[in-house]
């Protein structure tokens, strides 16, 4: 019953073997000179000023989430715009409904104060 998976199975094995082999090879063959500067995390050559693990305002998060939400929904407009003619009246009505619901969401966020920074 599982014969048809033999090929996939072999590929899985080979892939795993190659990945593991690479890791293994680098750890065996690679030169190992360790000094303090090398162990530090770095970004574009700049040394690190503050700890990256610090608190930041939840507002950023909120704005980010809202952005993603509306952004993703706005993406729907592109295929719709391209197929606008072929979708006909049905597409137009649908998109109006879509915008309406989106508008309700926006209104909610706005009135609720989700967009206020302070």
């Amino acid at each position, binding site marked *: *019953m*599982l014969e*048809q*998976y033999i090929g996939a199975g072999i590929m899985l094995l080979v892939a795993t073997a190659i990945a593991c082999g690479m890791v293994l090879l680098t750890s065996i063959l690679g030169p190992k000179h360790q000094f303090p500067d090398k162990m530090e995390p770095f970004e574009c050559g700049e040394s690190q000023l503050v700890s990256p693990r610090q608190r930041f305002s939840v507002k950023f998060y909120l704005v980010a989430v809202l952005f993603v939400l509306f952004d993703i929904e706005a993406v729907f407009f592109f295929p719709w715009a391209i*197929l606008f*003619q*072929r*979708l*006909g009246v*049905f*597409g137009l009505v649908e998109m109006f409904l879509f915008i309406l*619901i989106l508008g*309700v969401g926006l*209104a*909610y966020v706005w*009135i*609720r104060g989700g967009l206020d920074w302070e």
Partner: protein
Amino acid sequence: MEHIPSPTVDLVSLAPVLVLSVFAMMVLLVDLYVKRDKTLVIFISLVGLLMTAISAFAKFDLPVHSFNDSYVVDELSVFFIMIFTLSSALAILLSIDYNKREGIRMGEYYSLILLCTVGMILLASSTDMIMIFLGIEIVSICLYVLAGIRRSDPKSNEAALKYFLLGAFATGFLLYGMTLVYGATGTTKLGLIAELIREEQIASKPLMLMGIVLLIIGFGFKVASVPFHMWAPDVYHGAPTPVTAFMAVGPKAAAFAAFFRVFAEAMPVLSPSWESLLCIVAVLSMFIGNVGAIMQTNIKRLLAYSSVSHVGYILIAVIAKNSLGSSSLVFYMLAYAFMIFGAFGIVILIGRKENEMLEIADYSGLAYKHPLMAISMSVFLLSLGGMPPLAGFVAKFYIFSAAIKEGFVTLVVLAVLNSVISFYYYLKVIVYMYMKEPEGEFQISLAPMTVFVVVIAMVGTAGLGIFPDPILYFTQH
């Protein structure tokens, strides 16, 4: 330029979903302008649910398939819509006083319940796996938020987070299962899948079977069956009590409706391969649920475990997969809605602001201070245990006879055995209420709406037990 054919739009079929969505949005917007008093919001929500229930009867000549066979209005879905609107309405009624007491002042609460109900309706009416997935996600996301709505309570937060993490995990299984089934059949439409299976035109049987296993896990998580139940006690415990009651009834019923559609309606021919799996899950749910409930000292956890065992019984209806199975499934969910809302209603009534009184020991001597409440609680618990002539007994009997008819004798024997075991812990609560001296004072303020829910639940539990015939008739025709 050729037109892309638009799907068979049938807005009348979709009426319940549309009506409820509009009301949900209305609630959301209206709530922005009322500050403290939520009466208007609640009123709109209840009207919305009522309108939804009415609009469910917009179609005659059932079943009606629309949207390219991905949405159906049939007896099962109409009846489930009734259960959903009922349970949502009861949940909202239960919340009124509870929210006041616990200081939950968010109007989003009500619109979330309504949106969740929209998801449930979609779930119960879908005949396309993509739609089912959509429904499940709508339901789940609303529930994640609802479970964590008491933001200041760490337990509530924890419940939400846990539910979310595990829910996401389970959704992965579900979606993967759907993908595999699609891979095996080349379609997501349940009707087509059924046809392909019947004509033995499945591209790859192992793929299909693998998909079935994953689907069982996905649905099994949503209905909280063993071994995918572990979230249930935690989440039921942590969530606000009305939400717990709501979760135990509405979304579970919706998931069962989809469960039934996918397995009993679309894949009956493959039943030899999934039957045994579901049997094992059902038996495990019954045993683990019951045994787990025995040692609980917290009433909400006790009810959570008991609901796990009830999932086991209800799964038998899916396994029976005959028409009696579907009607017994509906009847059980209705009876279960009354019993659960009644029991949780009492739990809410007994609690107070400083102390929610969730320990079973807190019920000591209730019968002497508040005999009516103790009697109601006993009726709900005994009904959950399957005591004739209450609703729970009729529901169980009905499911068991559906299974017996299909020859699942061992399963029924185990189920009956479990209903015997379950009495032990239901009785424990009754023992505390009737046979222990009161420990502290009960400070019970009889919140009118909560009492109203308990009365409705009482009438439902006793009525469905003594006069089940009209409803049974409806479920079959």
